[in-house]
């Protein structure tokens, strides 16, 4: 530092003062001072973890600091009190978590292990979606958490997982879209745990998912339809896809969405619909529906999004579908 006589707080001091101040947030008279202390100390913590942008962080200090953070159990407290912190301090909390969550010692991720042992942390983070002021901050930490398979699995298996279906339908757009981003990460980042999850919770999951596909919110509808296409066409989810495209109700839903008033919805629906038609071993009820609507489908598809001429894959797929339906 520039001035030799300014003694920098040690990691131990920093963590201790943060923890003390967090305890004082409850009472009205000490709250302001406590908040100032927290904000100031969080900036210092962030400084140690991230460096100042010019010099890299010192590994010894980082090690000491993270050791103190785990030992003092300050992380659950920070999460629990994040709504009471100042605006910039909330962001600092996310940034501190996200740095710690990347910390790796050999093959171990100590922060992920720490959070895995304290399920409350993720539960509180998830409930952050219920408060617009902290939703994005909590969302950022959650997405960083679920990069770790153990934490993703914990969240998938917890009863709280089902809350996503209401969070992504929240009327505040920024919160709902952040929740959707997290939901999507959770369902696509660790394929090996998602496939068994979708198989075992098939009925419950797709019952709720169908509500999203029928949502009155245009973005929810479009996003969930797009994600459905991605999930079903992923090879690890093959068994789930077979089950999904064997159900005539799902086919009817896709055929309706294919005629949705929004062209973008129609287009996303096409990418799910194609799986029903391309399936070489169609179930009887599926073939029946397709045969019954043969003429209409062929006519509709022939004029379907013909302006997307530059999308060759789409044109090929469409030609293939038309032929397949005609041949039924």
């Amino acid at each position, binding site marked *: 530092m520039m001035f030799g006589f300014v003694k920098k707080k040690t990691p131990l001091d920093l963590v201790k003062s943060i923890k003390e101040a967090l305890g004082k947030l409850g009472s009205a008279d000490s709250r302001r001072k406590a908040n100032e202390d927290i904000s100031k100390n969080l900036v210092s913590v962030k400084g140690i973890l991230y460096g100042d942008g010019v010099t890299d962080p010192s590994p010894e200090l980082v090690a000491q600091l993270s050791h103190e953070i785990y030992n003092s159990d300050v992380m659950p407290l920070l999460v629990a009190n994040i709504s009471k912190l100042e605006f910039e301090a909330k962001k600092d909390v996310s940034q501190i978590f996200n740095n710690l969550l990347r910390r790796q010692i050999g093959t171990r991720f100590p922060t992920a292990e720490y959070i895995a042992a304290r399920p409350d942390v993720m539960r509180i983070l998830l409930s952050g979606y219920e408060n617009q002021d902290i939703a994005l901050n909590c969302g950022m930490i959650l997405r960083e958490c679920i990069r770790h398979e153990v934490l993703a699995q914990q969240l998938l298996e917890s009863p709280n997982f089902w809350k996503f279906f209401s969070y992504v339908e929240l009327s505040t757009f*920024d919160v709902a879209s952040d929740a959707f981003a997290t939901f999507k990460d959770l369902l696509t980042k660790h394929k090996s745990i998602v496939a068994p999850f979708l198989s075992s919770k098939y009925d419950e999951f797709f019952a709720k998912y169908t509500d999203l596909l029928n949502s009155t*919110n245009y973005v*929810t509808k479009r996003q969930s339809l797009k994600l459905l296409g991605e999930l079903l066409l992923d090879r690890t989810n093959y068994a789930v896809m077979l089950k999904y495209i064997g159900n005539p109700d799902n086919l009817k839903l896709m055929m309706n969405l294919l005629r949705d008033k929004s062209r973008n919805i129609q287009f996303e629906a096409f990418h799910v619909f194609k799986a029903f038609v391309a399936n070489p071993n169609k179930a009887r009820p599926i073939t029946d529906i397709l045969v019954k609507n043969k003429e209409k489908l062929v006519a509709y598809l022939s004029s379907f999004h013909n302006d997307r001429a530059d999308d060759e894959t789409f044109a090929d797929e469409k030609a293939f579908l038309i032929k397949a339906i005609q041949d039924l």
Partner: protein
Amino acid sequence: MKVSLVFVSNYLHRQRPLLRQTRALSFRRVESAGDLKQPLAYSPQIKDYELITDIGGVGDISYLYLAKYIPTEELVALSYTDLTLSPDYELVDEMIRTIRNSRLCSHKNILPYFTSFIENERVWSVTLPVATGSCRGIMKEYYPDGLDEPVVATILREVLNAIVYLHENHMIHNDLRADNILLDMKGNVRVTGLRQLVSLMQDGGYLKNVFSILSDNIEWAAPEIMAQNSNFDEKVDIYSFGITAMELAFGHTPFDEWSPVKILLSKLEYDCPGIKTTKSMPKSFMKMVRACIRKNPNER
């Protein structure tokens, strides 16, 4: 960055903020919306807003209204973007990013953002109303040859506050121009247009530089962005700041009415050209501008 910022702020300090002069500018477009205190939460339902005046298109993809928030009778700016405009998903992602970015900024010189919601196929955002609109609009209507020097200096100083805040938060604005600087009746300056904002803080660390696709701000974009063959850092904002300073002072940039190809080639090959004008600005101003628009980012 440090060096040129000091340079810029030295210049601006000599032109001590003449807020009164800014206030003296009288614009008659929309009645003053007054100072707004942000209530706890604005409702995410279109039925709670009453559209008052149709202000017009912004940034090619959005449409802006002055509206009344019915529960509290406060005035707000309400803008919508039609999500069916583009067939691909990029537009939805871009809206999500822009709104996220706005939500993560809180600074007196950055346009405060209140809430956003979906209605049919549109996304609406509710922000603070800025009665007089953008500096570009003000100049177009009242000051085609640019604003007076004290006014320019005052605006730039406020814009610089916003840039310092963004850079401290490791964000690059990446789209500074008079269009994105709003001015209200009291002379408050608010930077907006966070569509192209890039964050250098990713994956639990700081990135030293980033890459992003060139957008439609080619007159203001720094040469290293135009080149599209390397990463860039915060210095791109300093370049745009310099061009914007000239735009405010003279009513147009040095690249006004140039064809995009000519701008591209000129920026890649040469230093920034001189500006066509009959107006004279003090030497210190031009010196500050020249320091900002150096072709080599390290010299800015």
